[in-house]
């Protein structure tokens, strides 16, 4: 069982496979979140992320442990980037590997959904003429 949790400057999706491959795994499911060019038809120049790292790592660990308790997983990866990211750049990657595919798909979806709900990371959308903290206001 390998569990990789980290806050990084740059996400390299290619490298997470080495971390997720396992002799007992027949399936690896990975989700990568990337910067979209448009939000509600407004052009996004980029995103800027900040985090409360100490707490973020603890919350990521809770999510990983919850997934491990819920599904039969071999490896789990949760990585989130901080700093400024341009369109198409990866900002988050989560993945899990398991003997059979339903487990890694369900776990992967759980990892990203829960990360978005609980991990203390904040995203500012930068438009040409303004920037907005996402979800801050009703």
């Amino acid at each position: 069982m390998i569990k990789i949790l980290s806050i990084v400057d740059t996400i390299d999706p290619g490298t997470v496979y080495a971390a997720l491959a396992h002799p007992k795994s027949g399936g690896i499911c990975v989700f990568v979140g990337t910067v979209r060019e448009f939000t509600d038809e407004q052009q996004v120049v980029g995103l800027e992320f900040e985090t409360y790292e100490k707490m973020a790592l603890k919350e990521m660990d809770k999510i990983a442990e919850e997934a491990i308790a819920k599904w039969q997983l071999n490896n789990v990866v949760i990585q989130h980037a901080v700093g400024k990211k341009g369109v198409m750049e990866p900002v988050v990657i989560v993945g899990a590997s398991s003997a059979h595919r339903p487990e890694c798909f369900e776990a992967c979806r759980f990892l990203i959904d829960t990360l978005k709900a609980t991990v203390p990371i904040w995203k500012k959308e930068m438009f040409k003429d303004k920037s907005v903290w996402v979800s801050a206001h009703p």
Partner: protein
Amino acid sequence: MDILFFGITKDIVGAAQIQLLEEKGKPTTVASLKSFLCQKYPEMAKLSSLAVAVNSAYAQEDTPINNNDEVAIIPPVSGG
């Protein structure tokens, strides 16, 4: 007592960290800290939600806060 601010709350306060000095009326629970902050920074009351972490874990409204706790203000998270 040091209080950490992140995301939009850091912009509202204009600082990543402030120190509450010992004084009468200093908040002693999460709930009283939140109302103290929302009074001092009215913009904070307009947020979708406001959570508080004590020693880097989400705290409840009635969680007590002490001088040597690490207290952080958590505006709506938006990772991913």
